[in-house]
């Protein structure tokens, strides 16, 4: 028994310290809409760092990065193309939204209030003009797939749903959610992009 425990401990220690899990999923309609997601995770629980890269059929990418912050709470970054994009730092029930060198502190439960929605929309759209459209499109697709709920790492998207204008995306036919694994060069590149952002601070 003791030998077994030692073996297990040795196995655990021999595991690379930065072993990252990468998982894939995909949302596609019966037309041209395909969104592939690579999700890379380092660590677990509240201290986990998570990066999600969403890529559409044209190769446009949206990055979401969730990481713990000193003193508790977590920061959630979202950007299109390249950082810094918009950062949401959640501490308790307040969220600080930072974009383009400006910031705003909001009570998360008040995001749907007209004033708060206006302020957030103005801040976000000045820094990332297409981000509200992206949030609206993801909201629409999420509604249609009935897939798994968007978890904590998707906080920026969930916060922007009530703020964003209705999406003009028009899916064709049924929209389906698929879980990976998927294989191929395109997925490897997506996984590499997600993993590369895990270590960035």
């Amino acid at each position: 028994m003791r030998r077994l425990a030692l073996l297990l401990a040795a196995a655990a220690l021999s595991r690379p310290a930065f072993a990252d899990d990468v998982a894939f999923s995909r949302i596609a309609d019966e037309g041209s809409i395909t969104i592939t997601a690579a999700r890379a995770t380092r660590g677990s629980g509240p201290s986990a760092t998570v990066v999600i890269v969403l890529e559409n059929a044209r190769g446009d990418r949206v990055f979401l990065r969730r990481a713990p912050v000193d003193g508790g709470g977590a920061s959630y970054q979202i950007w299109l193309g390249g950082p810094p994009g918009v950062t949401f730092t959640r501490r308790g029930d307040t969220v600080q939204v930072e974009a383009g060198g400006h910031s705003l502190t909001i009570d998360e439960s008040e995001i749907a209030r007209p004033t708060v929605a206006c302020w957030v929309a103005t801040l976000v759209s000045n820094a990332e003009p297409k981000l509200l459209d992206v949030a609206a499109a993801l909201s629409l697709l999420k509604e249609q797939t009935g897939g798994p709920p968007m978890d904590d790492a998707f906080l920026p998207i969930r916060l922007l749903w009530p703020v964003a204008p209705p999406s003009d995306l028009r899916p064709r036919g049924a929209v389906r959610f698929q879980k990976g694994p998927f294989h191929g060069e395109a997925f490897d590149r997506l996984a590499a992009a997600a993993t590369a952002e895990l270590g960035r601070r």
Partner: protein
Amino acid sequence: MKKPAAFAILLLLASPASGAGFFDGVPTKGYVIDDVSLDVLSAEGGTDPIARLRYVRLSLDPGRRDIAYDFWPQREMLMVERATGEKVIFERLIRLQPGSDPTAWAPRGRVGIDGSTLETFARAAGTQGACSALDVLIRAGNVDLPLSSGDLSSRTVRLGVAQAVETAVAERGRELVASSVPILYAATTKGLPAPPLDMLNLLFPGRAFARSAEGLTFRPSAGAPLDPAGGAWRSVTNAPVMLPGAPVF
């Protein structure tokens, strides 16, 4: 990492009021309806007034005669000059003729302090987009902050307004406002109206100003009334031409 400029979001919130001054479009000539000047004495302060007050209500001449006098816009000015020489004015505009554009911001209330101002605007209808439901605009210094009057209980809105006000008005100026409010409420017993202070609910949402002042007495002002067009008052407000009586058509 450089700390983001807190509150700078407010600068981004462009609005149709941007560029338009509070007094733009407000008639510059008015007929005096009410005019009360008081000296404020403190039980502990001897015979010298601790503050001087003047309340003026004007019927503003709209420059046309198809509007009955009773429906002319009005401007109220509630001036406070402390013994230290510090000045603050609370102003209110009512009955302004609506413009052709219901989405345009119309001036409502103003607090003038030497070197800084807080102003409120309102509009009858919103525009398109995420900010369409907002019916109030607060201008704190050079920052425009639109909001919905239904959101004043919101913690986020209160924090945002407080930050804008703190950025625009120095601590001494805010203290001057806070310490003048109980004097003005006490003076309502002498005929000074409280409505010009209503805007404080917008500018300081959630803040409970003291309304009672112990040991104050008032007497009709012994000196010349405070003159909004004179001296240092010119840096606090934009004085109208004040005419006695009523217009002769």
